[in-house]
C-alpha cells in the first residue's frame, strides 16, 4: 500500500465509466485495502462526456461510495488559477491538468493506463510527477 493517496487520471476514470470489470475490481480491491484514492472532479467530467449512459453515470457515481475514495473538487480562485498554470505549462487538457494539479499539490502518485502521455507534462512541471501505470505484464 502507498503511504500517499493514489490519484486516478482520466484514462482510468474513463475506462471505469466504460465498465471495464478488471479495472473496477482493481479499484475496489485497493479501496478494500484501505488505500486512499483521489478522483479529481474534472476527470469524472471527462469520463462522463466520453460515455453518455445511465450505467456510466452509475459507475462514476459509485466511485463516491468507496470508503477510501475522495472526490477532489475545483474550489476557489487559488485552485482555479493553479489549474490554469498547469494547463499553460503542460498543454494538458483541463481534465488531466486537474489530475496533475491535484497530484502535484499533494505529492501523490498518478495511476494511469498510459504512462507515456504523462512523460512530457511531468517534465514541464517544476517537480516531476510520480506516474504509475496499470498494465498487465503478460500483455507486453
Amino acid at each position, binding site marked *: 500500500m502507498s503511504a500517499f493517496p493514489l490519484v486516478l487520471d482520466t484514462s482510468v476514470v474513463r475506462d471505469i465509466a466504460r465498465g471495464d*470489470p*478488471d479495472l473496477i475490481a482493481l479499484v475496489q480491491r485497493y479501496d478494500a485495502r484501505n488505500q486512499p484514492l483521489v478522483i479529481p472532479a474534472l476527470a469524472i467530467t471527462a469520463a462522463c462526456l466520453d460515455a453518455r449512459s445511465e450505467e456510466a453515470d*452509475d459507475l462514476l457515481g459509485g466511485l463516491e461510495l468507496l470508503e477510501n475514495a475522495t472526490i477532489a473538487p475545483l474550489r476557489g480562485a487559488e485552485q482555479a488559477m493553479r489549474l490554469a498554470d498547469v494547463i499553460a505549462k503542460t498543454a494538458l487538457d483541463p481534465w488531466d491538468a486537474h489530475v496533475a494539479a491535484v497530484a502535484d499539490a499533494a505529492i501523490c502518485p498518478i495511476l494511469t493506463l498510459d504512462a507515456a502521455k504523462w512523460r512530457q507534462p511531468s517534465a514541464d512541471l517544476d517537480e516531476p510527477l510520480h506516474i504509475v501505470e496499470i498494465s498487465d505484464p503478460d500483455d507486453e
Partner: protein
Amino acid sequence: MSETKARITITVDPQLSAYAERLVETGNATSVSAAFNDAMADKAYRDRRRRSLWLAKVEQSRQDRVDRLMAHVDEQLTDDQ
C-alpha cells in the same frame, strides 16, 4: 418505510428549501419534511443500485489478471518509495 419518524434539524440551501415548499403548495408533497424524506429515500435507492452495479462488475472480472495488475502497480509504488 418506518412508521416511527426520527426528528432531526437540518440546514439546507435556500433554493432547495423554497423548492420543497413549492412541492407542498402544488400538492406534490404532503409536507416539507416529506419532500426531504423522499429525496433521501431516492438517494438511498440510487446508492444501492450503484453499489450493486460495482459488485456485478467485480464479479465479471478476471481475478488472475487483476492480481497481476495490482502486483505490477505495487511494484512501481515500492520502487518510488
